[in-house]
């Protein structure tokens, strides 16, 4: 693992770009959760304060929840592929190679998308269970 260094710059940059993307991917699922949460809270607050049509907003936000779940699902799926545990059988990713780090970032992003998924479902529950602006 040591002999090959001095990679060409462009190769280096390509790899860096890819990993920047996967570092971003780690936060993507929770960011979707955060955006969904902020949209729910903000829109409902303004709607109730200004007396807009709450039922339409609830419906719209439930659609947004669906979209958020799809988005997180997609992130989770690509992260699962990046983790690639089905082929490597490696649940731990503790090695020191670039490949281990690549799998690890996929693993972490996958787990975070599960948490974000649960978060979005939880936050959507009030939209279903609670009616108007009481």
């Amino acid at each position: 693992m040591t002999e090959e260094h001095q990679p060409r710059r462009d190769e280096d940059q390509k790899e860096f770009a890819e990993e920047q993307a996967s570092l971003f991917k780690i936060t993507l699922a929770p960011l979707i959760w955060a955006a969904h949460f902020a949209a729910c809270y903000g829109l409902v607050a303004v709607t109730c304060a200004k007396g807009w049509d709450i039922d339409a907003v609830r419906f719209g936000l439930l659609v947004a929840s669906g979209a958020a779940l799809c988005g997180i699902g997609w992130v989770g799926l690509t992260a699962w592929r990046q983790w690639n545990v089905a082929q490597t059988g490696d649940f731990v990713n503790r090695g020191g190679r670039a490949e281990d780090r690549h799998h690890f970032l996929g693993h972490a992003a996958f787990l975070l998308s599960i948490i974000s998924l649960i978060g979005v479902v939880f936050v959507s529950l009030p939209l279903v269970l609670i009616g108007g602006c009481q």
Partner: protein
Amino acid sequence: MTRPSGLPQPEGPYPPTDEMLAEPVPKDVQEAQAKRLRAAWETPKGWRYVTAVNNTEVGKWYCLTALVFMLLAGVMALIIRLQLAVPENDLVSADRFNQLFTMHGSAMMFLFAVPMFEAVSILLLPGMLGARDMPFPRLSAFGYWCFLIGGVFVIGSIFFDAAPRAGWFMYPPLATEDEGPGSDIWLLGLSFIEVASIAAAVELIVGTLKCRPPGMRVNIMPLYAWYVLVVGGMILFAFPPLIAGDFLFELERSFDWPFFDPTRGGDPMLWQHLFWIFGHPEVYIIFLPSIAIAAMIIPTVARRPIFGYSWIVLSAVGTGFLSFGLWVHHMFTTGLPSISLGFFSAASEAVVIPTGIQIFAFLATLMAGRVKMTLPMLWISGALAIFTMGGLTGVMLALAPFDFQAHDTYFIVAHLHYTLFGGMVFPVIAGVYYFFPFIQKRLMSDRLGKWAFWLTFSGFNLCFLPMHLTGLWGMPRRVYTYPGGLGWDWLNLISTVGAFVIAAGFATFVWDLIRPKHKQAQIPRNPWDGGTLEWTHDVPEEAWGVRSIPHVTTRYPLWDQPDMLARLDAGRYYLPDAEEGKRETLVTSVIDAEPVQVQRVTGPTWITLWAAAFTGGAFIFPTFSWYTPATISGALAICCIIWWLWTATAQVPEADSKDVGLGLRLPTYSAGPASVGWWAIWITMLGDATAFASLVFGFFFYWTASPDFPPDGAAHAVPGLIALAAAAFAVNWGLTVGARQLNRAGRVTPARICLVGAPLVAAAGAAALIYAVVELEPASHVYPAILWALAIWIAVHSGAGVIMQVYCLAGSLFGKLTPRYDADIWNVSLFWHFVTISALVTCAVLGLAPGAL
């Protein structure tokens, strides 16, 4: 496309081969190197000791100061408990009691819990990362001195009967209308400390991202580093809303601008939102680093790597995010729509999941390992017992119907102390026992430690367990006394007894900590058989941090890289020498930790002390409405900081690159995204942008909450001047970036011309913005007041930006800034990216909102 600066790239073999690492270093070379290193890193002696900036010294001071503040706040708690021991007690007056509980909460949060995280991290992180020091040692020292000055000022006020007394949450209008300097002391003193906290957070983030040892990719960082990263990020987004709130609050206190005064369109709820957007993440900012200590101790105890590393990373990152969706659960009884409460109830339940995962990952590690019980582990077990209890009551409180009853009662007091003792105090003490050999090269007593544990643990439960019942039986919080005969009497008495048992436990612990240990035999280097890099420390102590910076390829290098320690000691790895007599550490790339640069770090100095003292003056004098001394002090602080930057940062090196060992040559200077300074500015400005966003949030909050915002017939900002300001800020941005590009291209004179023009245009823009609102009466209504606040925010930032531009111009004239060495102007243009966006948003809000709303 920016032209490359012409500075050299890293050259030579990397990663090192086994043969290269196996080659011995001659003895005489080793000794000569060690001598030079020791000289470069020597800690100043005698009265100059206070000029030290090394992380081991600053970290120690920081920890001890935070501990002293904690003990003082603990004594306040004891007085509180004595007062409440029996009904209708008159040991202290109502006013004194209110000062005591306000200060107890404020000090524990702002002077102990958050600083303790920073202190411990400054102390330990470089060791865990095999770094020589933090990337900006003088910044840590500056932060420490700010913390000390601000802390003494805030906590000292209680001895003059002038302490804040409106609760640590400072709700207006109670706090805004409070007479006397108490609220100002809280606002200004703690804002000062918050700024220091953010500085430390920036440093810790940059340290974790850019100062890891070569080879330590993100998937093998010690878990502590992951937590530092998450918590640092949280501080960046959590503290700025409070700083924005403080800014508005102090404008109301000083100039009667009615941000929170409902009679003039203000709204006390805005403070509650800003405070708790800070306040709830704050709980996790306190909790996560402490659990990180547990994540370091448990693998050692289980004698195996942590089980579920990725899960813990998930849990830290997940908690970091979710914790920003909980703040309204402190406001369940403010009459918000039920559906809004539902969102926060849901998020508050969701955050339990990552927290639980953390605990189960620890359980799984213990399960898979061969456990060897130690004293630190005893404290961790106690922490778990207490924390799970606090967590479970937290699950109950997240349900709004339960909270309607329990809110603001002693049930909450019990809950929060269970989470904070279990989630912070116990793990930190475990950490003290565990890391004491690393810090002081001595061991603490096992016997005293057990005594301290059992006293604290039993005292804690005796004190706080009954409070659940006291609260459910209706006793509200923050009462200085209570009538007898309501069933609360004996419960309170038990709690008071418990509080003193805790105090006995703490006394034992503190005695064990400070008792002289000179007679103790030298300790083994790795007393707990830990696997992470901090246990490569030198016994007896050396100030250089690490003899040579190792190449790390595993999560537990001491377990998995058996040859590492000997090679490290021999100076086989990177930077084993200090040929130029300068302090240096290695900068590596963010994800894969490939070495990219040798960073010259700064050494002992008085300037940080002066800078902190004058900054302190700028914050403290306004408390007493001494605005002239405050202004002078602020100006001197700026001078000190400019002097410090000019003489110590982004220095032109004597050679463009140097040999760092193992055949690798690294550049000694970098600019832009490759440099740590650029990262620091980026991260700082992210926090600054959050504060600005909070102000804009305030503007729209008023619009949402009030039907007459802006009020009918209100005067608006002058549109023509707003347009002028926007144009000026845009031109200024163009000139600044243009100067950077021209300078890099070697066209120095045009660059200088841009740097002359830019500050003038920026100043004109700021002036136009102020003139646009100057006719408005900020004390008359919240609408003109918030416009003023936004304009001032931008004007102050422009002022800082102008100073930076002039600094670059001076740098260009005096040879500090050249086409080849241009880090300063990269950082300044980054600053202006952010400020320009803020300024344009402000112009949009001021200019367009009257028509749009």
